[in-house]
């Protein structure tokens, strides 16, 4: 099968796949970018409680333009709504939820993920003059599980799944699962374990696009 015959997942499909794997009742923090889309794709018969770093628990979807509450924004500084049952707390308490291990899941984007679970998602160079870390290190180190949603490769084709991150680390050994436009992979003691691939893609073709060694379950 040639390279051209498979169909990569698009952004919405990447978010959908992650959303489908979130069970009811989890407390979840979503990073900026594709992870934010996950909230819109949680199956509607499940209650999942979304957290935002700036003291919001029980975040709802974006408001209609004519119903914006200017005092309600999320960590990405977008207007949000609050679900019934939502609550507000201060920044230290909000990060106590994160750092104290109370979030079941955090979903982040990343520049690189290593096969030992290391994640690099905040600075593209050791020499970045003024990198912006925000809450990424707290979330990566603090949540019970860290999932990453990202393209499998950079625009120039280099693998973002690596044996060792070349970018500055956000946290060590914490990524549990990666959803890319090509595959879903768990990070295990053996390294990346392929759980699924884009339609038409072979393991051989996936490995050709991946620096780190891929494994199959069993």
């Amino acid at each position, binding site marked *: 099968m040639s390279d051209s015959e498979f169909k990569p997942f698009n952004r919405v499909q990447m978010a959908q796949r992650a959303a489908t794997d979130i069970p009811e009742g989890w407390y979840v923090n979503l990073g900026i970018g594709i992870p934010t889309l996950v909230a819109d794709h949680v199956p509607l018969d499940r209650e999942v409680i979304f957290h935002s770093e700036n003291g919001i628990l029980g975040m709802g*979807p974006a408001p209609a333009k004519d119903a914006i509450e200017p005092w309600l924004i999320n960590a990405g500084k977008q207007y949000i709504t609050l679900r019934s049952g939502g609550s507000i707390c201060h920044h230290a308490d909000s990060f106590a939820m994160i750092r104290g291990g109370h979030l079941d899941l955090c979903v982040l984007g990343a520049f690189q993920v290593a096969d030992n679970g290391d994640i690099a998602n905040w600075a593209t160079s050791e020499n970045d003059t003024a990198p912006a870390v925000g809450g990424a290190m707290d979330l990566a180190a603090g949540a019970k599980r860290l999932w990453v949603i990202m393209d499998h490769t950079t625009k120039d084709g280099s693998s973002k799944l690596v044996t060792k991150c070349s970018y500055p680390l956000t946290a060590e050994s914490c990524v549990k699962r990666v959803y890319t436009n090509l595959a879903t992979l768990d990070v295990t003691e053996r390294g990346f374990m392929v759980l699924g691939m884009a339609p038409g893609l072979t393991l051989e073709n996936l490995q050709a696009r991946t620096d780190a060694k891929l494994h199959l379950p069993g």
Partner: protein
Amino acid sequence: MVSGLLTETLWGRGDETTYQIVDINTNQYNSANRLTLARSPSPALNLCVRKRLPEGTRRMINKIVQSMADAMAGIKDGSTVLLAGFGSVGQPNALIDGLIEQGAKDLTVAANNAGSGHVGLARLMELGRVRKIICSFPRSSDPVVFETLYRAGQIELEIVPQGTIAERMRAAGAGVPAFFTATGVGTKMAVGKEHREIDGRTYILENALYGDVGLVEAWEADRWGNLTYKLAGRNFNPVVSMASKTTIVQTQHVVGLGDLHPDNIHTPGIFVDRVLHIPYGDPGSF
């Protein structure tokens, strides 16, 4: 009109409530599909409620348990139990009785006091179920059970300054495994602890105090486990909730989701696992 199963989003604003219709197949919110009605009696905020219709048929998060047995299920021998309450105010008496009934033994109990009379915590100790007690003030109006056990060498005691207990619980909940404090420096409490001078003052290092189980008394609770406390009933309850792997709550009042104002929820449900409705328990004499 949108076909397929519908989901509604509810906006309250001013005197009106707008129901926004959402297509469950595309899961898209479409501002064209809106329906405005007179205001519902709900809270005075812009809230968003997302629910599948009919409500009764969908699964929901529901931390409210129906029996004491469900509330106490799975508490293991050897557990560390954090017990909120100060005096008899904000003390989860029904849950302590439930724990007595449940049978777990070899417990470590952290609480401000070491029990009074022959009920509650004192009863649990009298039954030989408590291996160790961590508290600031083992004396009480009637500490006979604790004192008898302690003199007989049948219970271990760790005295901790009251603020250090509270801060150790808060640290456990906040991902802080250890912190420096000035409390206790130069006293028996500092013996064997790491000392450090920071900016000219001496501090000692204290560890987080984690609970396997936390027992909490709330005033109001909803099905997500959001809690409020009444006046001095708050005391240790919020930090016990944060610090415990399984937080079990008795509440005098169960309220509907959304009935508690989001600005005034004292313990958010993320720190709560099980809620049992105990519709009595105003503090008595002590």
